[in-house]
């Protein structure tokens, strides 16, 4: 299958995006903000179709909208709070706007499916370069804020007392999530960003207790699911995004069923009494 350039491109693009999604998603799960990630991708849909309407590349509309929305969401609350309803309303509105933009720009409609469900087999060299750039910026910035981000995520009250700027950290992080979502949507589409950003990270958190081991496992799961998904799609002729989503679900539910150390916990618990 490597004799086809589009396959090589697909592996490269999916590989870059999977690692970014796995790493960013790990923190998204740790902070309990997975729904925010989901909402950002829907907002990105309006951005992408809107960009098409005014003749720009959909990716830039996607990045512009997710980034703006991520920053606004970060500024609105420095604590992770229950804003599910507000986020839900905004994401539905965004999908609505996306539909409206499609309505006025009908020739763009063929791309709508690609936006919603991804089209990794149509990735070209320019897109790979853009994705690599996004990956470098996202992972680089994440490395800079990682230490206070973990502190603020695990213990916000104490972090605040130690002088960590909670609002800045939370806003910067959501901006990075926005970039990761924009990249991820290129591979699996805006509707299925969860498969690469949340599934692998949640599975990794079930299986490890260490910070670095969890981070690495999350990226490894995402990468494995993305690449294996492409291979399965190649041999079965099923859509790539379906294969990745199926693998993501399989890994996640296997991790849930995996016997964790609860048996040992019960033992030590009784022992302590």
């Amino acid at each position, binding site marked *: 299958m490597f004799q086809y350039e589009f396959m090589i491109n697909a592996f490269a693009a999916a590989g870059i995006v999977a690692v970014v999604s796995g790493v960013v998603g790990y923190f998204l799960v*740790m902070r*309990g903000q997975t729904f925010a990630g989901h909402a950002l991708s829907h907002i990105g849909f309006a951005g992408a179709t809107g960009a098409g309407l005014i003749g720009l590349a959909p990716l830039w509309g996607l990045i512009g909208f997710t980034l703006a929305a991520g920053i606004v969401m970060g500024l609105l609350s420095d*604590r*992770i709070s229950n804003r599910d309803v507000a986020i839900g309303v905004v994401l539905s509105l965004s999908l609505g706007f996306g539909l409206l933009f499609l309505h006025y720009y009908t020739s763009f409609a063929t791309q709508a499916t690609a936006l919603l469900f991804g089209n990794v087999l149509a990735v070209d060299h320019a897109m790979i370069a853009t994705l690599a750039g996004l990956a470098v910026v996202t992972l680089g910035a994440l*490395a*800079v*804020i*990682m*230490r*206070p981000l*973990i*502190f*603020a995520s*695990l*213990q*916000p*009250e*104490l*972090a*605040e*007392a*130690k*002088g*960590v700027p909670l609002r800045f950290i939370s806003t910067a992080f959501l901006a990075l999530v926005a970039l990761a979502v924009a990249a991820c949507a290129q591979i699996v589409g805006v509707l299925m960003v969860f498969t690469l950003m949340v599934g692998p990270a949640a599975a990794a*958190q*079930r299986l*490890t*207790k*260490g*910070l670095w081991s*969890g981070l690495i496992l999350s990226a490894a799961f995402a990468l494995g699911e993305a690449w294996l998904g492409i291979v399965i799609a190649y041999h079965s002729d099923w859509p790539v995004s379906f294969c990745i989503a199926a693998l993501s679900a399989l890994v996640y539910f296997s991790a849930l069923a995996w016997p*964790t*150390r*609860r048996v040992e*916990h019960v033992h*030590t*618990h009784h022992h302590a009494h």
Partner: protein
Amino acid sequence: MSVVTLDRATIAINGRAVLKDISFAIEPGEFIGVLGPNGAGKTTLMRSILGLLPPTSGQLKVFGETPRCGNPAIGYLPQLRTVLPDLRVRGLDYIASSLNGERWGLPSLSAADRKAIEATLDDVGARDLASRALSDMSGGERQRLLLAQALMGQPKLLLLDEPLISLDARHQEVVIDVIKTVCRERKITVLFSAHELNQLLGAIDRVLYLGNGHAELGRVDEVVTAPVLSKLYGTEIEVLRAGGHIFVLSRGRDVERDAHNHDHGHHGHAH
């Protein structure tokens, strides 16, 4: 020199004065029980001492200086309200995240840091928590982990915000005992907020009662009296002493127990 001094200080949240014109001084090595009804300002006072909430008028001094964020001489155990249910982070990483957690860059854990964490966990009798996941710990184990974290870096002042919340009576005793022992040994000054006075009676040197914007600091027999508490609660209070216990009653109901149950129902969000 006093550890914490308030001189006619008023502390307000969003323009509403929670503590009005209060003055008291806490001396080195004292174990102070901080009590009072919900919303009386127990958490607010601690946040002020941490430098997060400067007084709107009057003076607040900590170790003779204006409080500043990130003072390593202060250990802090925040009230447990954000419990992320599925967080499978082991105890070691949880505490490690707070060491220099305000610095930029990648997290790191030196061998010395790891040793220091394990030694502190030993001090509170919780060595095994280092390798256990937070989500697998009981309430008592979590509080011990947080206590160990508050003790990291050899603090001189410990602010413990409701460390007994959601613990059963036996675990409450154990936690109080550990804190008392460690702090006596290291001559650490302690502010310990709680809903019920009785468990603390054997541990505290003085009690700081907050209520109605006022504060009274003194020995238990001076402060926990009907006239003082009636003023602080803003309603008629009876104080009964029986069998080494003290019951604070309002119209025949135990106010502390009611406050405690109330808090349980709301998962401690009342503050």
